[in-house]
């Protein structure tokens, strides 16, 4: 361990709450998104317990509505969207491009405080009557009829949006202006490309949800009629504006995870990544095309057949850059020297689950089929394969991959591998039955179901308890490793990125001298300087521990 690093450079609560160090802010985010993950997880647990019996085991129908709504709001706005960008992105982006910090360190801290204020409003809503509109806040239910605490929740999500916008702005400017000498655009790690693409959605999509929720909030507070048909407004307009952000928001969740996978795969296949520029370009393509597919959430609103047709075709287009990534990752594995370290298990799991999630997305983009499975558990299963099987697997995999860099310590590898497998099994057992349930016609968001669906629901609940174990294990051993883990050294895997050439944990300024980049990315064949050939031997550069 280096004698001085960003964790021990200064002490005291003020040095954390007023820090402008991107690495410390990343850790502040890590703690807060983990908190919201467990809040959302608690609601999910109650949902799954409730659905053990056809008539519902636990709560009243009204409470059930609140459970799935609060699960969605906590998970989407306060965990999934900030998770990889604000934790891993914040920590890694400046180091990966050889900068001392983000372009605007104080704005970075501000965005964390905005997140906290937004989160505070939402928790206030949850604890004073709850929220029962669905995470989608559809009007006029949210703006007129709901008796739950909609107003503070809308204010909270509105405020939280500015946290995303500022993070996106910071990342884009940083990538443009803060790169180290020699770090050209096509030498950027693919994780950075993914963060850049995500940031485009942050800055162009988030303002639209902000204004939409503002209008819906004004409508509720002052009885206006923007989206209320009783007063001449148009509820479908709300859905258009909502999904204009909220479909791209799905790519906010999955793109950064794809970036993580693009880092892990070449490291543990000991090969340069296949088709670097195509993976980089496909991130941008997903971000751009993602803005033109939103109305596939609205095939049943009575929109014109022609516009539905156009949105259906455009939605299919997203499959192309997504498939480009999957094929390129697979090609990277081909004839690679693969080792199954924990991050790699998550990456391989990601590919499989994303494949299922992505392909079932095509079912839903298909006009005719979507009418059959619209608003059923098929949709629930599909987006959990993308968001949990994809985004969360990527996030947890990334945490494992960079944990030695963040904390300077190694986690217990054997236990971590077991946890990864437990998570994978638990996930599939939870959500695969939901595909079947949906296809058989079980609608989402109902508190009860016909008795013939019970077997599949019990399977899903059983899976959820295994899944919960799969999340608790890393939580425990990662925390344990901060104190008792073996010292990691600079480059434990070893990997080629710039972040692996500085200390673990890094200095406050990231590098002693600004690095100069003279090599191509993922060049696992021509980097003897990193000792890459001798896999598995940690290079203890500053080994004074």
């Amino acid at each position, binding site marked *: 361990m280096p004698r001085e690093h960003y964790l021990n450079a200064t002490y005291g609560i003020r040095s954390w709450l007023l820090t402008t160090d991107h690495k410390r802010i990343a850790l502040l985010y890590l703690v807060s998104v983990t908190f919201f993950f467990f809040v959302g997880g608690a609601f999910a647990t109650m949902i799954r317990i409730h659905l053990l019996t056809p008539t519902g085991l636990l709560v009243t129908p009204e409470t059930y509505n609140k459970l799935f709504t609060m699960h969605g709001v906590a998970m989407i706005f306060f965990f999934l969207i900030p998770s990889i960008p604000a934790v891993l992105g914040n920590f890694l982006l400046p180091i990966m491009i050889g900068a001392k910090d983000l372009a605007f360190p104080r704005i970075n801290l501000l965005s964390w405080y905005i997140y906290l204020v937004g989160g505070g409003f939402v928790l206030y809503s949850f604890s004073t009557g709850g929220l029962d509109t669905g995470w989608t806040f559809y009007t006029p239910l949210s703006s007129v009829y709901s008796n739950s605490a909609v107003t503070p929740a809308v204010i909270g999500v509105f405020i939280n949006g500015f946290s995303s916008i500022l993070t996106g702005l*910071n990342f*884009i400017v940083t990538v443009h202006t*803060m790169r180290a000498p020699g770090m050209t655009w096509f030498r950027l790690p693919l994780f950075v490309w993914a963060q850049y693409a995500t940031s485009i959605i942050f800055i162009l999509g988030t303002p639209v949800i902000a204004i939409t929720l503002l*209008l819906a909030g004004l409508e509720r507070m002052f009885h*206006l009629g923007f989206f209320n048909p009783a007063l001449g407004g148009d509820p479908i307009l709300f859905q258009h504006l909502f999904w204009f952000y909220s479909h791209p928001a799905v790519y906010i969740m999955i793109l950064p995870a794809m970036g993580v996978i693009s880092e892990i795969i070449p490291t543990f296949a000991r090969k340069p990544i296949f088709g670097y520029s195509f993976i980089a370009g496909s991130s941008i393509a997903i971000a751009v095309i993602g803005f033109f597919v939103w109305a596939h959430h609205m095939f049943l609103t009575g929109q014109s057949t022609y516009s539905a047709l156009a949105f259906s075709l455009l939605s299919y287009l997203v499959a192309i850059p997504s498939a480009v990534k999957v094929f390129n990752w697979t090609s990277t594995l081909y004839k690679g020297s693969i080792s199954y370290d924990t991050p790699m298990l998550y990456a391989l799991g990601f590919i499989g689950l994303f494949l299922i999630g992505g392909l079932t997305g095509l079912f839903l983009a298909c006009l005719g089929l979507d009418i059959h499975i619209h608003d059923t558990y098929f949709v629930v299963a599909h987006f959990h394969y993308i968001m949990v099987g994809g985004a969360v697997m990527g996030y947890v995999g990334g945490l494992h991959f960079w944990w030695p860099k963040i904390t300077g310590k190694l986690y217990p590898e054997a236990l971590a591998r077991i946890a990864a497998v437990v998570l994978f099994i638990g996930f599939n057992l939870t959500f695969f039955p939901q595909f079947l349930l949906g296809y058989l016609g079980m609608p989402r968001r109902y508190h009860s179901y016909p008795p013939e669906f019970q077997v599949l629901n019990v399977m899903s609940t059983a899976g959820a308890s295994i899944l919960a174990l799969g999340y608790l294990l890393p939580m425990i051993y990662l925390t344990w490793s901060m104190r008792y883990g073996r010292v990691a050294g600079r480059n434990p895997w070893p990997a080629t990125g710039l972040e692996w050439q500085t200390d673990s944990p890094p200095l406050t300024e990231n590098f002693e001298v600004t690095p100069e980049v003279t090599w191509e990315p993922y060049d696992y064949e021509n980097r003897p300087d990193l000792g890459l050939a001798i896999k598995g031997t940690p290079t203890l550069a500053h080994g004074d521990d």
Partner: protein
Amino acid sequence: MHRTGELFGQYKTMEQQRETASLGMWIFLSTEVLFFGGMFMTYTLNRSTYPDIFSEASKTITLWLGAVNTIVLIASSLTMAMAVWSSQAGKKKLLTIFLIATLVLGCVFLGIKGVEYHQKYVEHHIPGWNYQFEANADVATNAHTQLFFSLYFAMTGLHALHMIVGAGLLIWLIKESMRGRFTPAYNTPVENIGLYWHFVDIVWIFLFPLLYLIDRH
């Protein structure tokens, strides 16, 4: 407070610091376009649904006050542009004068806006608050004209909020300018706040015809 043109630790050169700030401001303004865009979309849809109602409701706003405000705001953009030029040319006195002129014009705009809002209050045209379009207006007319006024207040209100933020920034600029902080080598805050001010003006250039000039020919 940082002295004139201090280099922050994360940058290597002043040039890099300036470019970074400028790019950041442009990206921020692009988010603002989308932010207002949602409301323009809502306006467009409602106007195409209720063209006659919108025309009728629009005629109750005082045109000449809006027109004067448009001129005031364009003039403030001019003084802001002159302020940016003064800071680049190193004319410190002139910079302060132009900044104060911009602030005064901005306040005049807000004052006139306040007069207009008061008129609407007197006429019972504030949505959701004793709203009555005309003495004997039917339920549908009341509801649909109220949509127009909801948009009127939401759009001009959000614009006014941006003006107030801009005025706050101008006050800070004037204070710093009087301390002689801005030089030809370092005037990034003047330029960036100038960009923001122009953006807020441009929003008004769209709002004025959309809200005041429906069928007025």
